[in-house]
Structures are given as structure tokens and as C-alpha cells.
């Protein structure tokens, strides 16, 4: 696999920012109750992370090391404002619901994390691909979560009725828990479980092991 292909594809399953690095969870909880706003949020984040990686990488040799984080965050914040303005100008309806979360992309750990960890050391093209890959990895999880939440919570997908709710005269009783943000924790957890059963190398080493209850017999044995 060529280097650029690897940089682009590895964050999707092998090194997923949400599932493996557990970064950027807050927006994954907040905007995933419906698919359409989630999709726009994914596009917004992917645009910000890939462009911020690109620009940081272009000027990486000029950035004084003691102010590098300030430079990165200034670039990221500017990009977020631009993305927010564009969203308001093309989809006002959705921007009303996700506007505040778009503004909060600035604080999303993935964006700053990739700028600091990858773009500061690599060339513009690779950095751009890395940003794109991480954006897609983030999007994969969000879309997975949103599909489950919208289908089970509201009985719809992209607003189209799939399961007719009882309050609309159908037979499906919407799961109110899926409507609340905390359900995303469980769905992300399930996703991580699925992913790690497939890619076993992602399972972390346990930090400590509980000692077994044979201490006494052992000691007794030595004493004898």
C-alpha cells in the first residue's frame, strides 16, 4: 500500500479517531439524533480538519515553536467561522439546529490533535490526506450512530418514515432513550466492540491484572 493511500485509509478502521483514540466524542453525542444534520456536521468537520492540516503543514517551517499552538488554533478557528458562515448561507434550517456544534469544532480534539501530531511533521499533500482520512473515520462512526438513533428513536431515516410511530397512527413505539444524547455512548461502545472483534490487534493490554485467590495456598506451601 502506498504511503498516501495508507495515510488516507488507516484512520477509517485501523486508527479511527473515535473508536481507537477516543477523541472528539462530544459532537458524536450531540448531533447524531438525525441523519441529515449529522451528515452536514461530518462534512463540516472533514472540511475543517483537512484544510487546517493543509494550511498548518504549508507554514510549518515558519511557525515559531513557542507559539505553534496559538497559530494552529487561530487557523482552525478561522476555518470554523468560514464553514459556519457557508452553512448559514446554504442551509439555514439545519444551521439552526447544529450551528452551535459547528462552532464547537474548534474545540474538537481531532482537529488540533492532527495538526500537532501529523501536519507539523509532514508535507502539505500527506497532511491533507491525513485530515481527510480522520474526517472520514469520524464520519463513519457518526453516521453509524445516527442511523441507529434516528431509526429506533424516530422511526425515520433522513426524515423518511421507515417505522410508523404510534403517535402517527402506526405500530412502532419510538424508543425515547435513543432520542437522548447519552444513547450515543452505548452505540459507540457497541461499535468499538464490533471493530475490536474484527481487528483483534486494537484490543488494549489490561492495565493491571487482578491477582488470583491462590496467595494463601502458595504461602502455606512455602511455609511447610
Amino acid at each position, binding site marked *: 500500500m502506498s504511503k498516501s493511500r495508507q495515510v488516507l485509509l488507516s484512520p477509517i478502521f485501523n486508527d479511527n479517531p473515535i473508536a481507537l483514540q477516543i477523541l472528539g466524542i462530544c459532537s458524536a453525542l450531540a448531533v447524531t*439524533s*438525525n441523519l441529515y444534520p449529522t451528515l452536514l456536521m461530518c462534512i463540516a468537520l472533514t472540511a475543517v480538519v483537512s484544510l487546517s492540516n493543509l494550511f498548518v503543514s504549508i*507554514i510549518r*517551517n*515558519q*511557525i*515559531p*515553536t*513557542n*507559539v505553534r499552538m*496559538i*497559530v494552529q488554533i*487561530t*487557523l482552525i*478557528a*478561522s476555518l470554523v*467561522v*468560514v464553514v459556519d*458562515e*457557508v452553512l*448559514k*448561507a*446554504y*442551509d*439555514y*434550517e439545519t444551521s*439552526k439546529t447544529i450551528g452551535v456544534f459547528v462552532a464547537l469544532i474548534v474545540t474538537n480534539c481531532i482537529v488540533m490533535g492532527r495538526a500537532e501530531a501529523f501536519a507539523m511533521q509532514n508535507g502539505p499533500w500527506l497532511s491533507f490526506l491525513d485530515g481527510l482520512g480522520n474526517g472520514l473515520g469520524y464520519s463513519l462512526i457518526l453516521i453509524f450512530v445516527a442511523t441507529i438513533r434516528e431509526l429506533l*428513536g*424516530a422511526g425515520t431515516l433522513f426524515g423518511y418514515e421507515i417505522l410508523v410511530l404510534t*403517535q*402517527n397512527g402506526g405500530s412502532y413505539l*419510538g424508543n*425515547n432513550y*435513543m*432520542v*437522548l444524547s447519552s444513547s450515543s455512548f452505548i452505540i459507540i461502545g457497541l461499535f468499538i466492540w464490533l471493530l475490536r472483534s474484527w481487528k483483534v490487534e486494537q484490543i488494549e493490554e489490561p492495565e493491571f491484572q487482578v491477582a488470583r485467590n491462590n496467595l494463601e495456598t502458595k504461602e502455606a506451601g512455602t511455609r511447610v
Partner: protein
Amino acid sequence: MNKNDTLFKTLFVGITLCLVCSIIISLTAVGLRDQQKFLKQKDQQSKILSSAGLLTNQKSIEELFMAIEERVINLDTGEYADSLDPKSFNGKKFESEDYSKDPLTSVQLSSDIDISSLKRRENFIKIYLYKENNNIKAVILPVRGLGLWGTLYGYLAIEPDLNTIIGLEYFAHKETPGLGAEVDNPRWKSKWRGKKIRSSSGEFKIKVIKGLINPGSPEKKYQVDGLSGATITSRGVSNMLAFWLGELGYAKFLNKLKEEIKKEEALNV
């Protein structure tokens, strides 16, 4: 020491970056402003039309909105305030919200009368009249008030008898999706049609109740089903109507308008 870490270089990078970023942001903001304003206005117009049940797919929103007359009214006297141009009457979110912040153009509400947690109420507000052949067919009044998580902003449309509701449509709120946000559910919105605001003796009656209305109850024409799992939002909707249709809200204006409509009817007969 790295060659980039000199004081000059640090200042140079900082200042250049700030300049470039601010220019890009300003250009985007200025370049997209008209488009944003247009969409925002269209969104609001569509909600106004939809509250009065006028939204159809055959005609564009602009075309439909031509039939709507915008008027500014004085809430204290209940009269039209024609010295204020409705076209330039534009607040940030709610058309008259900016006026409600200014002590010169608003009144403070004490906590016992402020049932919708507005804190201040503006003296001037823009309302919408839908006319056919110069006869009023619907009166559309902006309403707002606290729900569970924040203020709900919407439009209430009533029939020319000024006592029958046509519809209630919210254009901005922060309620929980699936629970309080069901105020946007078309099925729930359709329950408002034909409900009466006051009883024949003039007593204020309209209310969102807890649970479903009893179909045999004589009170049912004043009641709307509560939103299940959203008691506080439902209460917020009731309170908002009570406030805006009360003395501090549109009551004076509606009384004057009633006289006016009666006079016109008498002339037409």
C-alpha cells in the same frame, strides 16, 4: 535556538496570520451576508404562511407572501403604529426582540405577571394580516416564551372572529428532539385548528392539557393534547398563549381590531 524563535519572527508570524485570517473571515461574512439574510427571511415567511395554513407547493413563498400585509402595532394602546416602517422592523431573531432590550421601547415585567419568563416586553411588535379582497382572513401574531431548555419563538394564526385558532408554528426552539421538539410534529400542530381561545363569556380558556383530551368533555374545544414526556414544554406553550393573548399582550389590539372588523362588515352588508 531555532531561527524561527526570535522575537521578530514570532511577532511577524503572529501579525501576518491574524491579518490573513481576519481578511478571509471578513470576505466570507460580507460575501455571504445577502444569501444568509435571504434564507432567514424565507424561513420566517414560510413559518408565517404555514401557521395560517397558506403554505402550498404550487406557489413560491415570495409569491404567497405578497398577500400578507405587515403592520407594526403598539401593544400598550392596541393601535397601529404606522410611523414605524414594518420593512425596517427587524430584530436579530425575533422581529421585535431588540426592542424588548431597550428600556425606552419596552416595559419590565414583574415575576408574578411574567408567566412566560420574558423579563421585558417590547412596546411595538410587527403582526401580519392575510387579506382577500381587502377583507381580513387571518391574523398572524408572533409569540414567544420559555419552554424547558430555552425560549420558543413562533407564530399564532387566528381567524377573523379573533377567537378561533388556525395554527401555531414555531420557528426556533431548543426543546428535546422527540419530546418537547414534537411542537414541530405536523400531527400535533394540526390539533390546534379550530380551537377556541375564550369562552362565550370572555373567559380565557385555551390550554395544553396533560394527557389526551376527553372527547366527551364540553371543554374540549378549548383544550389541546399534551406532548407526552414534555410536561414543561406543554406548560410553556399554554403560558405563552396566556401571556400574549392577555392584557399585556395582544388583548387591547384584538379588541380594537374586532370593532374595526365589525364596522367593515356592517358597511359591506
